């Protein structure tokens, strides 16, 4: 029987290699790993190795997994958890906390590829909605009004966004006038995005009127460039109202004024800044409620 000095050193070098595992990428996390003191003589191909009943049963403890430093586990949160983060965040937590608290109560899920895809899609939805602005043209009908169902349909038609009625909240009930308003859309989980909605005066879709409009617009742009741009709020407001609303802007509700300034594309006034800072803080409020998927 040859001594194990060479074999032992070889085995010690090879101990660092992880074993092949069928489905997981992590190394083998056995509880006890042992190796033989005595080397087993090589047997012929096809026949099993002959083991001595005592000598080849003498083992040496190589590693006990419970003495390793505890690794942290990766999870994706589904709700806001204090001290960890909000929905969609990937966090590293201790295994005890993750298994007994987060996964058991459904506050988090495993970061499998399918789950990661779902959360990435949600993020994209929220980003898209945040940067979108719904514009509805007012129809020359007496009974024209904008309520929830009409908003849903307009979302579908103009922005290709499917919003079921129970995910949409329109705080103004019915709206008949031209002006700027907002609505709140709930995405998937808990995020509520405020989308500015503006009702514009009627535009005739016929080609002749469109050409007229185009000519008018070009005229006005030329006028605006020639006029020196003032920094007072009044002139800015007047310019803004000329550029966006074709006809005379009807008096809006006072509470909506700030938001309409913010949603207007031009202008860098202080009111716009305050409204812009108010908007993101509104979006972060997360009242938990159920809601559907966005297509």
């Amino acid at each position: 029987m040859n001594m194990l000095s060479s074999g032992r050193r070889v085995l010690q070098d090879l101990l660092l290699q992880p074993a092949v595992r069928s489905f997981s990428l992590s190394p083998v996390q056995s509880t006890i790993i042992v190796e033989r003191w005595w080397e087993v003589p090589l047997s012929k191909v096809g026949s099993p190795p002959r083991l001595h009943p005592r000598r080849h049963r003498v083992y040496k403890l190589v590693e006990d997994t419970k003495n390793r430093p505890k690794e942290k586990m990766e999870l994706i949160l589904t709700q806001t958890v204090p001290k960890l983060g909000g929905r969609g965040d990937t966090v590293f937590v201790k295994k005890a906390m993750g298994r007994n608290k987060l996964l058991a109560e459904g506050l988090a899920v495993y970061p499998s590829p399918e789950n990661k895809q779902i959360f990435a899609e949600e993020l994209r939805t929220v980003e898209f909605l945040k940067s979108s602005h719904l514009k509805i043209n007012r129809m020359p009908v007496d009974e024209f009004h904008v309520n929830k169902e009409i908003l849903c349909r307009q979302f579908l038609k103009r922005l290709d966004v499917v919003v079921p009625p129970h995910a949409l909240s329109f705080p103004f009930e019915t709206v008949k006038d031209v002006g700027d308003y907002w609505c709140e859309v709930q995405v998937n989980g808990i995020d509520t995005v405020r989308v500015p909605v503006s009702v514009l005066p009627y535009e005739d879709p016929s080609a002749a009127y469109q050409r007229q409009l185009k000519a008018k617009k070009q005229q006005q742009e030329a006028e605006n460039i020639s006029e020196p741009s003032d920094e007072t709020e009044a002139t800015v407001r007047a310019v803004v109202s000329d550029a966006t609303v074709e006809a005379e802007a009807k008096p809006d509700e006072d509470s909506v004024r700030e938001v309409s300034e913010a949603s207007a594309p031009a202008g860098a006034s202080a009111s716009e800044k305050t409204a812009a800072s108010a908007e993101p803080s509104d979006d972060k409020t997360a009242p938990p409620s159920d809601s559907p998927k966005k297509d």
Partner: protein
Amino acid sequence: MPLFKYPPKVWEALRMKQGIYARLPKHYLKSLEQKEPTPVHWRPLGVQYRANPQTGHKERVQDVPIPIYYPPVSQDGLWGGEGWVSGYRYAKNDKLSTRLKKTWKPQLLKRELYSEILNHKFTITVTGRTLDLIDAAYGFDFYILKTPKEDLNSKLGMDLKRAMLLRLARKDTELYPDDPVKKEKVYEKYKQFEIPEEEAEWVGLNLVEAVEKQRQLEHKEPEPLFEACVDKLVEELRIQKLLEPHLTEKK
């Protein structure tokens, strides 16, 4: 005659080829073949040939597994491939000192694990390794469905696998009958593991259970001899009637 027709070592294999054993389904017989489990308590070399560190020449090497004992209670829990490693050790890790008997046993924990497909919380004795494997497979149901029989090494594990596969195969009647939204979600998640119901019924049965199941399938009520005799008599009388000459009176 000192020798048998077949050597005793092949008697087991021969027994599986005759009688009711031969009538068992083929996919079940294939699943009975023993395969090697993933090494748990030892580190395999993984290669067939390597360079000898002393001489540098190429030499053939082989993996010799450590024999592990799986007590019967391991079949009632999910030990994740762990078992008792019993052997000897040298005192003070020195080959020239006394040889002492040593048994290493795994640390068992009782945990409540929830299965989505079966919609039930099971209290199972697991080991730390099992919990790590469940995390690596991204879920308890995934772990049960993905691990092969040799790696699960537990009757309870195979029974759970059979129950899950049957529920997926009978999804219309059994999988969340009251909640169609949840049913769709769970089915989408696990439909990659679905197998036909006839195959799912045989997953994880041991030989005795499988033989009993086959016996039940082949069982027929014995037909009373009376009916067979009556049929035979009627047939004979009919033939006799036909053989009689048909007399017609000429008028």
